[in-house]
């Protein structure tokens, strides 16, 4: 049965190459799209490539969900010289989130983009694929400088994507410009930080960095590097007070872009921040420098309340959701600042849950924009009655955003409250609950607008076409599903939090036991020269 073995070998080879494929597939899709240059083909290519990425990320996540990590050496060059991809539960979950959202956004984008942009659809999809690749790359890589490269890939394409909203509203151009300036400053800070680290350690591989930083925690260079990295990534993550680019970018970008960015972009940055804080620097280092206690907690609270308060008063649903995102990022930062298992789990789960929740809501807005032409409360009054499915989906998303039990949003807030309790920070637990009440208000306002207001007499709005409806429904179901069945999200987050709080990016423990795989990995097989390092748990 030689053929059989061959197939299995090919399968195994592919299996071993999954980390590379995760990036290569979407990355290569971008030029392909441009090359074919047709709108239909472009969409199909993009969708297909996202789907493949989703499958890959799911396979990867399943391998690491129980613990351990996968190390993949690009081109067979061993780190610290070569670039290493390193996947554990933490980035596995985020990879899964990003590819999930991308895949589901694609069908939605098709009609939404047609309605909002008239020209250059192929370039749009190419850009979206680049942005997707960038985000995935940032998350998957285990090389500090590579993070910067992918960060720039995603950022540059994001600027373009945001600017594409200019057809609907010219202010998209200034929004994109602002984002460009600020994003570049953020990325520069980040790269300066890495520069400091390189100066102190002479390496760029994260695991290696982690090793070499030990013992020179008190060095000014290392510490300054930390400051630059945190501020740089904080900006990309829209941490208050560095969030000012976000509302405008989200508001004026085309709906589909907003869906994608809101669900993924800030999450990727927060993940990288987590990685640098806990894996490159150590949790002890972070603790001793008091950054969390003195900076993160107040800033997180400020975000939770400030963002929510602004959201309460918005008159444009899209902008309201953008400010709500700023508030929600506050919860994630707060989770990090708790510096315990529950807190970091809460952050991880909240990234995931909030990702899908916001995606649902922004899709709902996208549907409104499609039918009513804008997302101002004045224009979407009563639309919930005219568009029953869209309305229902927004209700579910809204409930999840508040954190009603039975929805995804509840799970993460519950964990966060637990984390505060574990640290005996009662006031913080109380503040989390209080700020959730603000979410009740701004979500209720939306319900009131879309259900209790009388719809325009002349309005003939109806639910959007199936291609938009189905993704919304899937995500709404996911909002409920992940609120009830928490094995996947909570499981991965728990493992991730444990690994992160152990520090050292898995240097201390051996990686995944590959002998558990159905076949022995043929060493050196495959043209990329993969090497999945073996060992026991």
């Amino acid at each position: 049965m030689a053929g059989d073995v061959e197939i299995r070998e090919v399968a195994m080879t592919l299996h071993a190459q999954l980390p590379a494929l995760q990036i290569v597939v979407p990355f290569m899709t971008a030029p392909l799209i441009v090359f074919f240059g047709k709108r239909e083909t472009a969409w199909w290519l993009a969708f297909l490539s996202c789907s493949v990425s989703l499958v890959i990320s799911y396979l990867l996540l399943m391998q690491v969900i129980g613990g351990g990590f996968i190390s993949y050496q690009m081109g067979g060059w061993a780190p610290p010289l070569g670039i290493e991809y390193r996947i554990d539960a933490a980035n596995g979950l985020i990879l899964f989130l990003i590819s999930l959202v991308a895949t589901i956004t694609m069908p939605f984008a098709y009609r939404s983009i047609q309605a909002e942009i008239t020209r250059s659809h192929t370039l749009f999809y190419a850009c979206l694929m680049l942005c997707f690749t960038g985000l995935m790359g940032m998350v998957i890589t285990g090389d500090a400088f590579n993070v910067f490269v992918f960060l720039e890939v995603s950022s540059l394409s994001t600027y373009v994507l945001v600017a594409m909203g200019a057809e609907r509203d010219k202010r998209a151009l200034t929004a994109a410009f602002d984002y460009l300036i600020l994003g570049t400053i953020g990325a520069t800070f980040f790269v300066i930080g890495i520069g400091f680290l390189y100066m102190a350690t002479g390496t760029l591989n994260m695991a290696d960095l982690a090793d070499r930083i030990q013992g020179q925690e008190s060095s000014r260079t290392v510490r300054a590097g930390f400051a630059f990295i945190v501020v740089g990534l904080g900006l990309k993550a829209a941490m208050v007070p560095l969030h000012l680019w976000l509302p405008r970018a989200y508001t004026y970008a085309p709906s589909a872009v907003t869906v994608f960015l809101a669900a993924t972009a800030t999450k990727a940055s927060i993940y990288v921040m987590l990685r640098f804080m806990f894996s490159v620097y150590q949790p002890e280092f972070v603790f001793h420098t008091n950054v969390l206690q003195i900076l993160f907690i107040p800033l997180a609270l400020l975000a939770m309340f400030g963002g929510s308060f602004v959201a309460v008063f918005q008159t444009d649903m899209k902008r309201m959701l953008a400010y709500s995102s700023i508030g929600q990022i506050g919860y994630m930062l707060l989770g990090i600042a708790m510096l315990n298992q529950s807190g970091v789990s809460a952050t991880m789960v909240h990234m995931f849950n909030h990702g899908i929740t916001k995606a649902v809501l922004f899709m709902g807005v996208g549907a409104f924009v499609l039918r009513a032409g804008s997302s101002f409360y004045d224009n979407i009054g009563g639309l919930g009655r005219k568009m029953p499915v869209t309305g229902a989906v927004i209700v579910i998303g809204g409930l999840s955003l508040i954190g009603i039990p039975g929805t995804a949003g509840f799970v993460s807030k519950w964990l966060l409250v637990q984390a505060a309790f574990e640290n005996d920070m009662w006031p913080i637990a109380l503040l989390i609950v209080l700020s959730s009440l603000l979410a009740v208000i701004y979500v209720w306002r939306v319900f009131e607008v879309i259900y209790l207001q009388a719809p325009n007499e002349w309005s003939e709005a109806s639910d959007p076409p199936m291609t938009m409806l189905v993704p919304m429904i899937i995500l709404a179901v996911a909002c409920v599903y992940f609120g009830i069945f928490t094995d996947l999200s909570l499981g991965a987050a728990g493992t991730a939090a444990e690994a992160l709080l152990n520090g050292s990016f898995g240097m201390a423990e051996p990686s995944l036991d590959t002998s558990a795989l159905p076949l022995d990995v043929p060493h050196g097989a495959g043209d990329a020269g993969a090497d999945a390092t073996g060992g026991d748990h």
Partner: protein
Amino acid sequence: MIDVLPPFTLYLLGALLLPFLPKGHVRGLLTIVVPVVGAWWIWSAPEGLHGQMTWMGLEMVWMRVDKLAVVFGLVFSLAAFLAALYAWHLRDTVQQVATLLYAGSAIGAVFAGDLVTLFLFWEGTAIASVFLIWARRTEGAYATGMRYLVIQISSGVILLGGLVLQYHDTGSIAFEAMTLGSLGTWAIFLSFGIKCAFPLLHDWLQDAYPAATVTGTVVLSAFTTKLAVYALARGFPGTEILIYIGAVMALFPFVYALIENDLRRVMVYSLNIQLGYMVVGVGIGTELALNGAAAHAFTGILYKALLFMGLGAVLFRTGTAKASELGGLYKTMPVTMVLCVIGAASISAFPLFSGFISKSLILSAAAHEHHNIVWAMLLAASAGALIHTGIKIPYFAFFGADSGKRPKEAPAHMLLAMGLTAALCIGLGVFPSVLYDMLPYEVDYDVYTTTHVITQLQLLLFSALGFALLMKAGIFPMPQRSVTLSSDWTYRKAGPAVVWYVGLAVRASWRGTSGLIAKLYADFIKAMHASAGPDGARAANWPTGAMVMNIAILLGIVLVVIFVS
């Protein structure tokens, strides 16, 4: 996994199905059938824990069946059935759906075996029930509903806080008897207390219930407060402080009941008083007392419903339930009058009526345990109940000064619902063992002793004598169009006035939710709006330079923090 479906699912299904049925009798029939099937479901459920599942590591129990839960579950089903029959004429989808969900949540809460499930249904009752108030569709009802909702939701939030603390302390979310002590148990206690309308936490009750629709008030009267009594009986039996809370509760609303003009509100004060008895029963905590609390909840739901139905019928026909506007209806609504008198006799605990067989249990329990002062207070409250409800309600609605109103008799379905309820009131009064057999503990109590019957008649008839003499002397306060101040004045008037005089007027839309808290909120919000609103500094589109400035400042701070540490 789930072996016995909790009855809530049935109500939920009914509520989901209802809007898709043709309007009219089919829908009415559905609202009647659901409680009947639900009751059978409860009746046939085997004792024990069912529907256990683990959710986020929490052991949830959707259906705990024991005698205490069953007796409440059954009476809730009965109340839902009677209310649905009474509302046969209703063509309002919102109210019908809300009623089903409300009754379903209340029943769900009764069978909740853990605090998280309890919390879910606790909030469910709050959210579903407010629509019965809003269904009146007036500005006043909207504001009242908002106030009601704020308080009910707060009760839920406090419960949530309490259960989190409790979980943190004990590592379990099981809903079992607790001892007051930790912050968590106090929070849970407070949350129950709000729903149970403890003194000074009670104003939402009088505020909201009379503001509901004709049929809505009947529904409301049955569930929320009795659910709270159940929760107390389950969570805090034998907690001494409840005895004193209950005693105060049983006595002080008397004054308000007497001077209140809106007869439906009089009934709510009276409801509050009856709750006081139950709370005392729970507080005493002996088997007799807990039986008494459960029995009193059972009979109370029925005769309250009967009286609310009677007054509802009057309101339905005349457009008002105010004592000052009514009177002399006995000739044109005689059947309603007779049925109301039966309800009044039940609530006053005349022998052979249902109130007698349940109230006696609580009074005896208080006497057996020698809580003499509490006993005396409850006795006085019994005498008072005759005056402010037993006599006042029928007297001012159907007799008294003739208002000149000559409404037609209530519609047949209302009479049928009232008739059934009245029959139950008398039936339970004549055959107490039917109810006693359902109670959580073995009943060894003979309610019809010579002493008991004679003393009770003495108490009641001499109170009636007092009323007659006071009327003759012209001392009895006659009804006037008015409202009565209570502690809600603090959040409905005083607070807002202060806020007003300080010059912090708020926008009209916020006035809707009113309340001191709401007003202060509104003020705060105005300030927030200035800074966070669409035109405020924090929502404005900042120039790029300013943002870069932010970055620089933050970097500076981070550096300082890191270097100093």
